């Protein structure tokens, strides 16, 4: 199972999901009305590296992080 982390203001508990690519995750989230507006502005990291492709393969034990817009300092 891959672990999904919702960072910062997303403020949700992590979940574990059985997916093989980020495409699966997109499909899974498409009816989550609370999450939809966040998905437009969130970046995605797999094992703490930002990714840019939905075809990114997901292995068991991978960690997927959703990162909302940032503002340090």
């Amino acid at each position: 199972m891959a672990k999904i982390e919702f960072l910062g203001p997303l403020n949700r508990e992590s979940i574990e999901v059985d997916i093989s690519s980020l495409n699966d995750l997109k499909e899974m989230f498409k009816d989550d009305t609370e999450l939809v507006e966040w998905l437009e502005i969130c970046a995605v990291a797999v094992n703490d590296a930002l990714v840019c492709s939905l075809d990114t393969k997901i292995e068991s034990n991978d960690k997927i992080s959703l990162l909302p817009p940032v503002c340090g300092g």
Partner: protein
Amino acid sequence: MLELHDGPLHVEEITNRWFNEMRDKNYGAYIPFIGIVRDEQGISGLSFDIYEPILNSWFETWQEKAKKEGAYLLMAHSRGDVPNHTSSYISAVVSPQRKVALKFINDFVEDFKASAPIWKYDLIDGKRVYAKERSTALKGAGLLK
């Protein structure tokens, strides 16, 4: 060097300590940038969440970049609540050369604002309100939309 602190930063302790660690290393310029929480729009302070794994790798990438030009970077940031008129963020550069130091403090601080995985909240009536309008979407944002 990257250090995270709970609550406001002790500016004098941090900037003095860094200066004393660096003063004998033959750098010609030391430039700390100190961010201070402004009292504006009725906030009592700011609050921060940090995602450390990506912050660390972002910082290490910059440290490598600095090393190639003979410079060295230092950074401190707060976790949690930081009241008005106290500091949540200090970045510093040391370099043998003035121009390198001035360029790094600018570029490093600007990229920090755009890329560091830190989330800011206004503290209003004791509640955390995400500073969405002041925040910047990271590279690749919207992938799952």
